[in-house]
């Protein structure tokens, strides 16, 4: 409250000195005219003076100069001298002509300069609005918009400091210089503090600042709402993903459980007529499905740990060849019917990676290939250097992945295995993606030339 009062006082007294100066000029010109003893020249000089004053100083000074000039001419240069009486009709006409001419000229000139000022002000205003608008549009979140606005207002109003405040966030732009009286403009939820240079802010500028701040407040509101809506959308998406993951987990756990319970309940049912073969088959179902359930539980736990960020990546320098060979060795029992060929480029440096995690990435991808590729076919594992990344490709000649499934296949519980005995958990590739991502790497799938699926992952040599 007190600050705003101070501002009003500071802004009020502007240019009281101009008419006084005009009066002094008229007095000086009169003195010159009298000293030279001329009268027509004096009239012309005074007229010129009025024009100049009106042009350079303004309407008020022009009017003062006109009145004083008229009085000076009348008093000093028309007979009788040193009196306001006029004897000759000629002089009366001259005086009247002077009064009218200087009055009209003065008024016209000040009007013209007013119009020029007005145009200049409007041009500057639109420039300011334009600049501010572009800064608002450029900003995506309230913070950058406020900073941009503070910056724009600072340059445009020639301030030494400008602070824009919207609720809890604020931005200040500052340049060195002497500070004038502080102006505060408040609109909507926005408060703007303008500190002009020693020269106080003009009334026009203040009005303009208010209009701009009002526009800015609306823009900030809009941006804040948009940011909130965006956040809400992201949160809803996360929630949906989480609940769909949970329902997928439930569904996937129940499926092997259903087989186990169905088989076990038949085995112990007194009325079921089972031969030795039936019994063996049901027992095998119980056994296999218990395995599947165990794999599922392990994978789900693993994936949950990675997703929760609870799995720490212990990076050490590892050799890609060692990793690949280790996985091939481990999967040898499964790979008996296939030919697995390893081709690692000699120039690959060691990778900063978690050995256990990479082991699982290789293992899951290789197991996948072995599961799909027909017996006797070749599975080719290659590793080469591409820029500052190592690229590992595992190519099989199995049924391949349809283009529309190549992205989706890395999602949880997505199985594209259409074979009747398919028992995958639908989590292997999801785990691969999570592990590779934890290493700042990427994983994708392609078509093997000649048919089949190729899974590729790339890992950076240097930690990003």
């Amino acid at each position, binding site marked *: 409250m007190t600050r705003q009062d101070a501002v009003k006082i500071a802004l009020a007294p502007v240019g009281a000195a101009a008419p006084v100066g005009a009066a002094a000029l008229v007095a000086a010109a009169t003195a010159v005219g009298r000293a030279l003893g001329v009268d027509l020249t004096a009239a012309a000089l005074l007229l010129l003076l009025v024009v100049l004053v009106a042009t350079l100083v303004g309407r008020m000074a022009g009017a003062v100069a006109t009145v004083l000039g008229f009085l000076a001419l009348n008093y000093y240069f028309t007979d009788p001298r040193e009196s306001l009486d006029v004897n000759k009709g000629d002089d009366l006409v001259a005086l009247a002509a002077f009064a009218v001419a200087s009055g009209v000229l003065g008024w016209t000139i000040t009007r013209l300069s007013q119009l020029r000022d007005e145009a200049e002000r409007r041009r500057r205003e639109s420039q300011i609005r334009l600049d501010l608008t572009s800064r608002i549009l450029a900003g995506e979140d309230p913070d950058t918009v406020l900073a941009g606005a503070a910056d724009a207002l600072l340059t445009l109003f020639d301030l030494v400091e400008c602070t824009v405040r919207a609720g809890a966030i604020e931005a200040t732009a500052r340049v060195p210089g002497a500070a004038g009286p502080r102006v505060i403009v408040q609109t909507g939820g926005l408060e703007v503090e303008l500190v002009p240079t020693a020269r106080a802010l003009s009334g026009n500028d203040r009005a303009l600042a208010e209009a701009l701040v009002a526009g800015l407040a609306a823009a900030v509101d809009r941006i804040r709402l948009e940011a909130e809506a965006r956040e809400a959308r992201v949160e809803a998406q996360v929630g949906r993903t989480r609940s769909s993951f949970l329902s997928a987990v439930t569904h996937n756990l129940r499926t092997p459980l259903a087989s186990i319970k169905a088989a076990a*309940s038949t085995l112990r049912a007194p009325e079921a007529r089972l031969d030795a073969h039936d019994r063996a088959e049901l027992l095998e179902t119980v056994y296999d499905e218990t395995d599947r359930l165990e794999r599922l539980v392990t994978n789900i736990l693993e994936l949950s740990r990675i997703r929760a960020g609870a799995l720490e990546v212990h990076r050490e320098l590892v050799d890609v060849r060692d990793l690949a060979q280790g996985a091939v060795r481990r999967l040898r029992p499964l790979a008996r019917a296939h030919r697995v060929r390893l081709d690692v480029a000699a120039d690959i440096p060691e990778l900063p990676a978690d050995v256990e995690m990479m082991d699982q990435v290789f293992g899951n991808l290789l197991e996948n290939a072995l599961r799909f590729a027909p017996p006797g076919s070749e599975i080719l594992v290659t590793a080469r250097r591409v820029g500052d990344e190592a690229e590992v490709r595992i190519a099989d000649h199995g049924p391949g992945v349809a283009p529309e499934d190549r992205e989706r296949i890395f999602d949880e519980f997505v199985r594209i295995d259409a074979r009747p005995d398919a028992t995958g958990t639908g989590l292997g590739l999801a785990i691969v993606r999570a592990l590779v991502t934890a290493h700042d790497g990427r994983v994708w799938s392609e078509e093997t030339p000649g048919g089949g699926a190729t899974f590729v992952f790339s890992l950076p040599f240097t930690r990003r």
Partner: protein
Amino acid sequence: MSSVLVIEDDAPLRRALRTSLRARDLEVVEATTGEEGLVVAADRRPDAVLLDLGLPGIDGIETLRRLRTFSDVPVVVLTARDRQVDKIAALDAGADDYVTKPFDTEELLARIRAVLRRVPQVHAAPPVIHAGAVVIDLGRRQVTLDDEVVRLTRTELALLELLATNPGKLLTHEYLLRRVWGQGYGSESNYLRVYVGQLRRKLHDDAGSPRLILTEPGIGYRWIAEEPESRP
């Protein structure tokens, strides 16, 4: 020998079901997708269908809808989802009963036998239904309890007839309301609560251990009275 069509995408479960059903003298035909199931159902005309709701491709509910356009074969749905809405959707789409995974095959067999028994009764509903001491004479529209005439309102009688002519079948709230009250009804399950309560009172059926009408909470009602032929 009755035949059962099993529509289930999970191979191990399909195998376990095949062995379990065959061990109870049921012939088993199999399908892994809804589309395949519809073709087999039209082709082989099974006596009952065991349908998994979580199928790839067209899902179980859609399969059921399409199946109902050409067949009224009894259907028991298998669902891994314990959500009430899915069961109700399946029942409203024309399922006769449901079993939630994981299930005991004894329980499943009981459900399958119940729906298999229902078949001849639907086509040749006996004019008189005996349920313990209760006798429902559909032709004369008269109900007696221990040979005493029970006075029922028209709505009570309609509800009782609908339940009693669908023995063992789980009828949803919506189905009962639409059939007894009319097309505009479907969500007024409180009406059913009131009318079933009145029927139980008049027929001396105890809601705590019912012999005639069983409440399936949140879903509907089921006529569980003993079959006439199983009476002495």
